[in-house]
């Protein structure tokens, strides 16, 4: 743990990637994540690493495919409409079992939407987004510090499980400044060797990187391999935080920027003697269903707060499994919940 | 004229006849029978005329032909 810096979220994402040993970054301009690309254009070259401003989002994710295929740590970043363009490449990365990090600094949609913070890409990030059965490990930071920590973990877990991972922030987190301390990078010694990488077949049989499995039962078998990997991730990588949940009559569930207002609301309501808690998924795939199931045994009501029209609420309902009512509070298109709005809504329910 | 020898892997041949057209000595032709894939395959009908030029192998899309020539 080094010095404390005051940094923009987007720049902290970049510096954390540098510290994590990102070998190559490929990006295309889109607001509100441009500071990240600009930061990398300077720092990656200073470090003697690879930076390309690509001709498109599609090209950027495929450059990541190439660098990841070479066994290097590769990253791209964008915001919502650009992430949509990357879905083809993300699906291929997943199919070819290539580790890579994708950062989404979400903005409003659908379509070109606007450049305000939003959480409208939850389904896309946690259900796949591209074609086929695949998953990403998706981190959901709610501060500049967590953005930095998550990028480093995203590289590590991508390598550990040979799959792409995503850090899903939003325009507010990307643009705001907060203090951040960068962790030391995790040692790679426990990570599997990248003996599958395309480095030239010197002294070994040739390697092939592909997602195409024509004929026979190859694709079925490959999907069974992926199923096993995803089950392992689900067993090991669920991350969430609980705040005042032990005796909570009402449990809030929120992630990212929306969770900041919820933390404020819990403190305010507790000061007023109301038994309200928060479950905050730190990773949104794999999802902490069991934590919600457990909480539903003691909590009478749930309120999910998202900056969208209701996406994660589906996962909360899966976890709660009908044991308690689950209500939703959220708007899309640039709305950021305030503490007062959440408190008012909770008071209506209590 | 040097003396050549052409060896064709009949199971790799798809009978496209590009080699037959390329042979300056009209050594090659299609077989009367079929390989296991169901193709009539290219075969040296007049091996004694082969000069080992290698044109047939050069045109073979299936790398089914080996060519040898007397030193």
């Amino acid at each position, binding site marked *: 743990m080094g010095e404390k810096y005051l940094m923009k979220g987007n720049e902290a994402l970049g510096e954390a990637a540098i510290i994590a040993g990102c070998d190559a970054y490929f990006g295309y301009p889109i607001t509100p994540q441009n500071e990240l690309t600009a930061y990398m254009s300077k720092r990656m070259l200073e470090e003697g690493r690879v930076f390309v401003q690509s001709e498109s989002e599609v090209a950027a994710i495929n450059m990541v495919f190439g660098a990841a295929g070479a066994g290097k740590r590769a990253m791209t970043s964008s915001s919502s409409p650009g992430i949509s363009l990357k879905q083809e490449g993300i699906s291929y990365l997943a199919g070819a079992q290539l580790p890579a990090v994708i950062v989404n600094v979400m903005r409003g949609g659908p379509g070109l939407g606007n450049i305000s913070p939003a959480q409208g890409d939850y389904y896309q990030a946690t259900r796949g987004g591209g074609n086929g059965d695949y998953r990403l490990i998706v981190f959901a930071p709610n501060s500049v510090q967590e953005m930095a920590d998550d990028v480093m973990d995203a590289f590590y877990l991508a390598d550990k499980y040979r799959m792409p991972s995503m850090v899903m922030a939003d325009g507010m987190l990307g643009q705001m400044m907060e203090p951040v301390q960068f962790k030391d990078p995790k040692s790679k010694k426990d990570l599997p060797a990248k003996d599958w990488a*395309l480095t030239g077949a010197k002294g070994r049989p040739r390697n092939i990187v592909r997602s195409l499995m024509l004929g026979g039962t190859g694709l079925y078998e490959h999907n069974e391999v992926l199923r096993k990997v995803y089950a392992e991730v689900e067993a090991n990588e669920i991350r969430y935080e609980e705040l005042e949940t032990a005796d909570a009559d009402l449990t809030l569930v929120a992630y990212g920027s929306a969770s900041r207002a919820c933390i404020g609301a819990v403190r305010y309501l507790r000061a007023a003697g109301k038994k309200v808690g928060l479950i905050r998924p730190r990773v949104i795939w794999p999802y902490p269903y069991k934590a919600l199931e457990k909480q539903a045994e003691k909590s009478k009501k749930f309120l999910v707060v998202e900056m969208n029209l209701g996406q994660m609420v589906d996962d909360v309902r899966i976890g709660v499994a009908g044991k308690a009512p689950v209500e939703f509070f959220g708007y899309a298109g640039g709305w950021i919940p305030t503490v007062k709005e959440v408190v008012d809504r909770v008071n209506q329910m209590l | 004229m040097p003396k050549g020898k052409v060896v064709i892997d009949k199971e790799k041949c798809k009978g496209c006849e590009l080699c037959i057209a390329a042979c300056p000595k009209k050594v090659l032709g299609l077989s009367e029978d079929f390989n296991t894939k169901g193709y009539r395959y290219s075969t040296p009908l007049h091996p004694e005329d082969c000069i080992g030029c290698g044109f047939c192998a050069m045109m073979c899309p*299936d790398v089914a032909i080996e060519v040898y020539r007397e030193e």
Partner: protein
Amino acid sequence: MKTVYKKPESMTSATTIYCPGCHHGIAHRLIAEVIDELGIADRAIGIAPVGCAALAYDYFNIDFSETPHGRAPAVATGLKLTQPDRVVFTYQGDGDLASIGAAEILHLANRGFNITTIFINNAIYGMTGGQMAPTTLEGQKTTTTPFGRDLQIHGHPMKVSEILSQTAGVAYIARGAVYDPKHVMETKKMIKKAFQNQIDGKGFSMVEILSTCPTNWGLSPLDAVEWLKKNMEPFYPLGVKKDIDQEQ
């Protein structure tokens, strides 16, 4: 007896999925011969995206990647920039390179990255069953131009090599054919130069190869060769389109 010809080491012994008489096989073999002759099999990395050649990884005895449709130049960029001493090449068809991947190849060429591209132009989509390609000729019938390519409706056939030759980053672009031994030998020289340029750090090099697609053209392999000579070659003239060695 002296061996005049046998399978190059850089090819596997797999039988290709290509139809009888398809020129893909000849192009593959020439690339493998060049890799052998340059002694780069242990540092060559091939990339073939979607199309008939998507399965090229089965046929080359080197490290290989299958990639998204048209994106091979981007994937090559990632592979090459992170490993500059490896020899990276893409193998792309006309639908892949000139249509869905037009942006990627244009920007790779213009950046002038030290990568080699082999571009197979057979004026049609092969794997999907004979649809119009960007390079389909005027009047040519395909499954999506049943009345022939009409320039008013379908636009013009695209001369990719000529277009890319205008970009500053290109070191070498040539168009060859493989329909007879003479052209096979000439095209092999072009391919060898396109790889040698990369080894020498000269920048982006591409060889376009006019090829037949007998199945989707509805012709025998030998008739397809005649069709190529009569129709494709006049519109897509063979030869070197750009060579920085000649300009200096």
